[in-house]
């Protein structure tokens, strides 16, 4: 089936070359970082995780979001998702590849990464994260490939694959739950120490992942002659809308707990993220624009997805609404959540984090790699689709 990825029009190759350029730049930047050390990033003693881990956290959500297509189709036999379920599974594969790459570039000693297996520590949440991320990656490759092969031969998929399809559903939930547990089990980091982190992560994942699928499906409709179906996209948009509302409801609950209880530790990070925190006469607020961007884009996205005209009559506004939600939640989880958690530091100091150019290019390159893989996988899937129709 892979040969389908080798035939494409000029736009296809230009797009791949465009992504490839960023991947090349990132490879160069990573060699620099590998030789010099993580001192080449903006991370510091106080903000010890930066852009890499925050992208990782967000992308785990994108990977988990695919389950919102798999579950209705396979459990509830919701036929309208027949054509786009494969998009969800393949999106999970590329998102997980990005996740794993972000972890590797963040390691101080990447050559030793197999120590996680050789000297496994079952009390560490990273151990479980490694298991569920790799497990979910394996399940999606297996299910996606077997089902697509069956589809191509126009035979029903083998019965045994359904075991793995059903297994992938709790795995999707688990990847984001365990990723939340990396944060919410740490004492002394008040912002993260909240039982609602895992549900909040899941809600934002079930909005951001499907939102990206809608945007991509609308693009594929124009450029690849692939119609996911109006009914399917409308249903996905409903899922996005509800999940987005639940996520922001959870954020609101964090505000209530912090500000009504008036416990300083619970308030500080929220203050820092949304209003800026004054400390020893200096105002620290470099994340404030991102967080208000999150709020504004959320409102715009919800509006576009709830007003019948923009939602149903016009592909452009539907896509814009989903893109707004996706970017909004990227700002929330892919920027604010991880970076904000380090402020204030355990010694009540405030260090602000600014990623370096080298670091940004590595992050961009990994995103490009993810979309490169996604493009190839979708090209194969759509190629099979067209072959059957022909």
């Amino acid at each position, binding site marked *: 089936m892979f040969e389908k990825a080798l035939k494409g029009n000029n736009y296809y190759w230009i797009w791949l070359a465009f992504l490839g350029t960023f991947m090349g730049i990132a490879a160069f930047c990573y060699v620099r970082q590998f030789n*010099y*050390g*993580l*001192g080449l*990033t*903006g*991370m*510091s*003693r*106080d903000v*010890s*995780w930066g852009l890499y881990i925050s992208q990782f956290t967000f992308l785990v959500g994108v990977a988990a979001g695919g389950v919102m297509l798999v579950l209705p189709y396979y459990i509830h036999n919701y036929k309208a998702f027949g054509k786009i379920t494969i998009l969800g599974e393949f999106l999970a594969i590329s998102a997980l590849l990005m996740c794993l790459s972000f*972890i590797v570039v*963040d*390691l*101080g*000693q*990447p050559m*030793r*990464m197999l*120590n*996680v297996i*050789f*000297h*496994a*520590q079952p*009390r*560490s*949440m*990273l*151990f479980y994260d*490694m298991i569920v991320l790799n497990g979910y990656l394996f399940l999606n490759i297996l299910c996606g490939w077997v089902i697509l092969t069956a589809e191509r031969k126009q035979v029903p998929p083998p019965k045994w694959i359904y075991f793995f399809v059903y297994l992938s559903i709790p795995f999707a939930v688990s990847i984001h739950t365990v990723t939340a547990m*990396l*944060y919410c089990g*740490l*004492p*002394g*980091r008040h912002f993260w120490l909240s039982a609602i982190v895992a549900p909040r992560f899941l809600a934002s994942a079930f909005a951001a992942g499907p939102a990206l699928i809608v945007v991509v499906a609308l693009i594929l409709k124009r450029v690849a002659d692939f119609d996911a179906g109006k009914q399917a996209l409308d249903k996905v948009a409903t899922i996005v809308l509800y999940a987005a509302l639940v996520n922001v409801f959870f954020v609101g609950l964090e505000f209530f707990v912090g500000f009504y209880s008036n416990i300083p530790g619970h308030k500080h990070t929220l203050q820092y993220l949304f209003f800026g925190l004054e400390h020893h006469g200096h105002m620290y607020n470099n994340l404030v624009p991102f967080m208000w961007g999150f709020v504004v884009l959320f409102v715009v996205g919800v509006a576009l997805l709830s007003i019948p005209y923009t939602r149903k009559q016009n592909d452009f506004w539907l896509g814009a609404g989903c893109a707004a939600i996706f970017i909004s939640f990227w700002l929330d989880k892919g920027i604010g959540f991880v970076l904000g*958690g*380090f402020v204030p*530091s*355990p*010694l*009540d*100091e405030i*260090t602000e984090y600014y990623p370096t150019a080298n670091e940004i290019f590595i992050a961009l390159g990994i995103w490009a790699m993810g979309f490169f893989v996604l493009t190839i996988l979708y090209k194969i899937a759509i190629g099979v689709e067209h072959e059957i129709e022909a």
Partner: protein
Amino acid sequence: MDKKRRDFLKVAGATTLAGLGGPAIVERLVSGSSPVQAKAAHGERLAGHGADTHAGAAGHGEETVKSGNRFGMIVDLRKFKQYPELIEKVVHACHAEHNVPHFPTRKDEIKWIWPTEYEKAFTEHSQYYKDKPTISNEVLVLCNHCDEPPCVKACPTRATFKNKDGIVAMDYHRCIGCRFCMAACPYGARSFNWLDPRVGLDMNHINRYFPTRMRGVVEKCNFCAERIGLGKKPKCVEVCGETRAMIFGNLNDPNSEIRKALKENYTIQRKPSAGTHPSVFYIV
């Protein structure tokens, strides 16, 4: 044949009994006191603590005494006020002893023990209307060698671990540099080698008896495990010498110097509500 079988059973039985009961006996010998006694003494000290820390900590902070050694430290802030030059001496001695590199940029900083303001060290204490000494005094902070160390739980490769003597130590050759332990530590005690540490060292004047680290691993105070093994005191305690500004000893031995000092003085710990049971105590 039968006789042999009988002998075998005898030996097997004795071995099993030794296996089951042995550790308890050994532990008793090592701790130097019966567990009941140790617990009583400990409980008394904690009762004194409860009043200062907030309700949650008093309720949950009770430590159960484990047998065996547990090394601990007292930092006497009164003494450091009396000998203000001591702070710098301690920091310098520790960092020289352990080849801790010096980087001028704050973001690359590596430190094992360092002075900070009172309110930064004790973030949970009321800071209203502080008395003058409290504002001006600096507090030495270091790894607390917690009895329940969150960093050990977080480490995915067991590169950081708790020794039987209570010291939270590190294997620099196993650390993958994921920095999960840095996020987990409620005391900000851990540093990461963002750069090649040898660049920040004067290689002609390093301590040849302690390894330098490499780029990309985490490091922190090790309570001078390498010196304790040789029967010496930690470097910082040695530097303080007769001033007794820092006291080191076995917290599980009711007759140790540190236990006597804990009995005689009102001490506090950093962030007791984190449930980590620090082994470093402060006399304010």
